[in-house]
């Protein structure tokens, strides 16, 4: 089997060799994106359902493009959910998808672990498109793909992730994935936005951003969820920008060839200043393209491809 599991629920569940396989396959997929005819017939007759319980533009569009480039049929379902059970339960939705014969279900959901719940109830492959504050594995894979494309490797690189680590599924997946692949991961953010036990996950935590950026090969800024301010986790976006925003001075602490990344959408002037977001170090737009390639690779591998032998 190319991937051990029928699902992609998180990087915690993936072996380093599986991550390598996804990244290698994504490299071949990326070639297709450069062609005039961006379509291969690989997944003809297969159905990919995107089931989104949270607003998202890029992740959903990225998955749908990936599916279409591989000639799969796509259905998108937008659903509302809450703890007071408006609408259908996830258990019933799972049954419906099962009966509809979906081959892959890409789900985004506000509750951590919701993809695990779904995966245990459907035969289809479940791809986690972001679950609560848990994981966002495809984002981390595309980030790793982007880094590897520029640096040729992941092992030994210093990657600094800056922002709301506590609530970021992007940070969580990147920490887990990058540590697995042998990178040195540093995270920086206000103490109120750092969860406990980060060291045990293999990341070094900093509450000041400068030492975290020192000599970094990659600087990843996270989107600051502005509603955290109301919960009292930081005083103001102004102060946040002053203390943690990535600007030219801070970026200059990193290696001269450092990459600047952001999972998007950006709050310009808050977590990242426009000069660096649009500057030469930025690979933010490329991340979007690579996202499609990585998701194509995952769809291909989940639907039977990728083992060795011929």
């Amino acid at each position: 089997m190319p991937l051990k599991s029928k699902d992609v629920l998180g990087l915690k569940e993936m072996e380093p060799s599986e991550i390598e396989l996804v990244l290698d396959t994504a490299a071949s997929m990326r070639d297709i994106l450069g062609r005039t005819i961006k379509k291969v017939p690989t997944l003809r007759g297969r159905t990919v359902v995107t089931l989104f319980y949270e607003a998202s533009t890029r992740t959903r569009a990225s998955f749908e493009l990936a599916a279409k480039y591989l000639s799969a049929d796509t259905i998108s379902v937008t659903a509302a959910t809450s703890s007071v059970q408006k609408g259908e339960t996830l258990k019933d939705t799972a049954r419906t998808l099962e009966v509809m014969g979906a081959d892959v279900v890409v789900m985004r959901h506000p509750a951590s672990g919701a993809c695990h719940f779904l995966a245990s109830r459907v035969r289809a492959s479940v791809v986690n498109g972001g679950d609560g504050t848990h994981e966002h594995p495809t984002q981390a894979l595309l980030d790793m793909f982007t880094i590897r494309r520029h640096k040729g490797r992941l092992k030994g690189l210093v990657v600094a992730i800056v922002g709301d680590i506590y609530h970021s599924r992007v940070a969580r997946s990147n920490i887990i994935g990058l540590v697995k692949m042998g990178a040195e991961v540093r995270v920086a953010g206000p103490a109120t936005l750092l969860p406990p036990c980060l060291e045990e996950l293999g990341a070094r935590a900093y509450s000041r951003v400068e030492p975290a950026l020192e000599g970094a090969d990659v600087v990843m800024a996270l989107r600051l969820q502005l509603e955290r301010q109301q919960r009292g986790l930081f005083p103001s976006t102004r102060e946040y920008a002053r203390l943690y925003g990535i600007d030219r001075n801070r970026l200059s602490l990193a290696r001269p060839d450092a990459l600047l990344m952001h999972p998007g959408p950006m709050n310009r002037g808050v977590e990242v200043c426009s000069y660096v977001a649009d500057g030469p170090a930025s690979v933010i737009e490329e991340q979007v393209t690579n996202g499609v390639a990585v998701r194509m690779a995952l769809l291909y591998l989940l639907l039977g491809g990728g083992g060795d032998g011929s």
Partner: protein
Amino acid sequence: MTFREKAEILDADGIRRALVRVAHEVVERNKGGEGLVLVGIRRRGVPLAARLASILKEIEGLEVPLGILDITLYRDDLASRRDQPTVHSTRVPFDIEGKRVVLVDDVLYTGRTVRAALDALMDLGRPECIQLAVLIDRGHRELPIRADYVGKNLPTSRKELVRVRLTETDGEDRVVIEEPEAG
């Protein structure tokens, strides 16, 4: 199921002679080789295409562009197989628009690989024509496909296995036919 060798079909010399003959036929058919490109199908079509290119250079002084085609994404048996090959890159570093493309593969059998290769090529552009060169044609076609150049025609049974071993991929030049071990 295990297989054992039944007979050697070609040795290194035999392979070389077959390729030289194919090269001559290619030149002849394409009136000197204007607009000619070679595209090898992964895996063993690739070294065979490279050898044809160097033979063409030797005998006619032709510089024929060389491409590599990975047909994994065009297979029609993804759903039924559990051991799909890894997707490798397609490397066709030239425009095939209006070119005379010679597809190269080691064994022509059901025709499905060639069908996939034709689709893959078409997605890269619109060549003037596509021709097919194979080292071995073992019969049992499932699609209306035939080769333009054949190194050796080899009648086989469906139970048998034709193994092409090339120095570049397998450390030796040899074509053998294998049959299932009894019992």
